[in-house]
């Protein structure tokens, strides 16, 4: 019961096999001798918004990586309860007394209403947590997608049938509902009775549930791509020349699914970031005091913040919008670079 639209998803594979690439890409003609990767790179570099987006995205990853270093230089950490350390800055409900959420030379982004954590370090550590989780989900999803998608598409027959049915089944899952219902279950599988549930348990649980319902669209696209590749002449030729299936997959099929893979990946990652944030927002993801993007939204939506300190909301909000916009622009550019036919 695959839907007719499937061929739409299954994006025409851009064949990367020596000179044949040129045949499908008229613009490539005067650049004979360059690999498709080089071609793509050249086109990408010409796309100004793509380059800027790439820098922005890179900046976020840099912040995430360097969060401990930055906070060391800044002299604070996201765990200090400033409401108790510096009670003169707060009222009894934990709202910063200074306007704009207590932004000052000392606390650049202000203080979080409630326990009074430092917003700046909390944000950079939050970005770190969120990106770490999302990258992990993306990697697992990509691996699963390649494995199952290419198997289904290239091997075909029974494998294809089984995998396609599994995909159909999982796509019918109410995914958010499933995330919420399964998070406590997955977390409880790891819990020790005496010690604090370590943060990594929640992180692993988040990765597992998102992976479980995250790989299908990619696998489906890769299935479509490799399905159509299977019928192409160069694969036939490889078969006739006696190449083993493994070799064909490795040398002929995989290089040709790189394009849809890269394009999809750049769309998937920001998607996972927002899903992870959504789960933490609903209270089933990362919880206080571990800094996390989504958990900051959950704080921001409390009445305490809504009524007293809207400023706080803008730090996670704006930073996430910039990140997602940049990543989506980057995704568009990557797609265009690979497949210049697509209209923009």
């Amino acid at each position, binding site marked *: 019961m695959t839907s007719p639209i499937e061929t739409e998803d299954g994006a025409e594979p851009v064949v990367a096999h020596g000179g044949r690439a040129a045949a499908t890409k008229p613009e490539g003609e005067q650049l004979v001798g360059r690999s498709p990767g080089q071609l793509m790179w050249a086109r990408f570099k010409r796309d100004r918004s793509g380059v800027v987006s790439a820098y922005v995205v890179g900046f976020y990853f840099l912040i995430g990586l360097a969060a401990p270093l930055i906070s060391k230089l800044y002299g604070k950490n996201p*765990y200090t309860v400033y*409401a108790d350390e510096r*009670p003169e800055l707060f009222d*009894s409900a934990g709202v910063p007394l200074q306007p704009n959420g207590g932004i000052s030379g000392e606390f650049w982004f202000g203080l979080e209403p409630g326990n009074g954590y430092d917003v700046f370090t909390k944000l950079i550590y939050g970005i770190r947590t969120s990106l770490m989780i999302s990258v992990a989900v993306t990697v697992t999803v990509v691996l699963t997608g390649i494995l199952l998608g290419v198997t289904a598409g290239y091997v075909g027959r029974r494998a294809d049938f089984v995998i396609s049915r599994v995909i159909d089944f999982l796509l019918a899952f109410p995914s958010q509902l499933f995330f919420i219902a399964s998070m406590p279950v997955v977390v409880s599988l790891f819990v020790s009775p005496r010690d604090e549930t370590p943060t990594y348990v929640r992180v692993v649980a988040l990765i597992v549930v998102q992976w479980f319902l995250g790989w299908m669209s990619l696998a489906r696209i890769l299935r479509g791509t490799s399905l159509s590749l299977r019928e192409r002449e160069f694969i036939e030729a490889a078969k006739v020349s006696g190449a083993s299936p493994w070799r064909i997959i490795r040398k002929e099929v995989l290089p040709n699914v790189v394009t849809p893979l890269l394009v999809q990946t750049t769309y998937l990652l920001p998607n996972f970031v927002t899903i992870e944030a959504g789960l933490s927002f609903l209270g089933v993801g990362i*919880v206080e005091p571990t800094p996390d993007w989504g958990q900051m939204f959950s704080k921001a939506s409390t009445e305490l913040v809504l009524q007293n300190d809207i400023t706080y909301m803008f730090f996670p909000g704006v930073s996430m919008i910039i990140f997602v916009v940049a990543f989506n622009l980057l995704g568009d550019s990557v797609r265009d670079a690979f497949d210049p036919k697509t209209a923009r």
Partner: protein
Amino acid sequence: MSRGGRHAYAAISVLAAGALVLTGCSKGGSDKGNDNKKDKENAQRQQQSIKFGDAAASTGPAAEVPGAKSGGTMEVLQRDSYAHLDPGQIYVSDEGSLATLIHRGLTGYKATSDDGSKHEVVGDLATDSGTTTDGGKTWKYTLKDGIKFADGSPITSKDVRHTFERMFAPFINQGPPYIQQWLADTPGADYRKLLKDGPYKGKHLSDDILQTPDDKTIVFKFKSSHPDLPYALAMAGYAVVSAKGDTKTKYDRAPVTTGPYKIESFKSGKSMVLVKNTNWDPKTDPIRHQYVDKFNITFNQQYEASTKTLLADTGADQAGISFNNQVDAGNLSKVLADPKLKSRTVSGFQPYVGQMNINMSHPALKDKKIRQAIAYALPITPFVRAYGGTDAMEVAGGLISPTVSGYDASFDPFGKKKKPAGDPEKAKALLKEAGKVGMKLTFGYINTPEGQQYSTAMAAGLKKAGFDVQRQEIPAETYYDQVSKLDNNYDIFHTAWGADWPSASTVIPPLYDGRGIADGAQNYSQVNDPKVNADIDRINKITDPVKAAAEWEKVDQYLVKDVVNEVPTGYYKQTQIAGSKVGGMVYDDVIGGVDPRRLFVK
């Protein structure tokens, strides 16, 4: 009254909204310090003056509320739908407020002043608050004439017997346990063995426990003396149930009522309509009024929503109120600062006292120095903050609330009122003496937004004193079940407890009697101190409430200062508001909120 069991979530999220009390960042803190004193006055005018009324005091009708008018419809905005209507299942405060309108018991609290401060326990269905000749072992009650259920059938001693016998049935599991325990003369849940299936399989309580010699007379016979029975009988949980109309579990949705109002319709989670019960005779009721024609109750009204609606004061909502919703944190400072708005509010203490339990059953915590270190180190400010600041929570000194007689405002052995953020230096010194710097401390916290917030900050405070704090989350709905297990893993965990009637006899014995330690019981800290046990037995026999109150306070101070099995955290407070056409609104100290019985439409 624990904030317990499956209602913990509801109770906790009520307070959750408190997390939002915001004294306003730009305004620069709160400006209503003087209100505090008044709250305390309100609360302290309490229990000493409650006496047991005689037949004259128990005769209806109730004294008119000044200026009261009959008629009109009142809109009631409630947050939580009522989970239980069966009296035997009623224990939580919102259902208790409703019960004052629909259910009647043998006794009840009669307001003897118009400000909700003075009360008397009088006979409600009974002709007086009860007579005892042997110091509280045998109690005799006689039913009034002309009392009927809403379906018109008369209320007889058979119904009363049925009411108490069904409290033993397995499906009655949310209500108060006191009288069952007294009848069976056992602590904890063992009383159920006395009448395993309730009255439904032909078995009944024997005559040496409960006698109903004729249609009007009920005699309770206890093995030990229980001078508090008239208080206990006034609980909604012991209101009368119709023997004929008892539909067991279905009774919880459609009870046969007795009060001045009956349920016209109830859509769980949506709405309830109360109309006048024509079979209620004011001449038999010294406590209640029937001014309003109709109460339109709507549920799912969050605190902000109800506050906003009532502040707007338009249309039908001018005659609007909430029995249990508080003014939400966001609007609290605004409302209290505006004299016009403030005149539409009432404020007071709730009966709850928060306390951090130290698990005495864990070997590591047997060292008193360590417990003292915890007491010194524990910051209370996170708790106050999480519930909305000083308007919603007051730092506690002892375990007896300002609403209970015997409360001593000056008691503060660990300097919490002066240093609410804790005293890590002192704590560290004690911990060093005990040679346990860096010891592991498992902190079980309730997994609500507030719980997460205060537990992280408390853990940070304890860490400063040299504890290795391991926070463990506990799901909110089963929180009290988990922490009341004897072999739980938690070294410290927070609970709140409110007196069931304004006497410390419903605080100290259930929480700190070492002989009551059992799975699911409320001696959460598992303290078993011979002196406390002996004191409990001694004070339980004192019949003079004033003297008893003073003695209970001594036990309280001994526990907090010398036993250190728990650290008191806060006294819960609240403010409620109504529309401009609502008359007769008072904060009733016994109910712990607005008194629904006195309301009228102006």
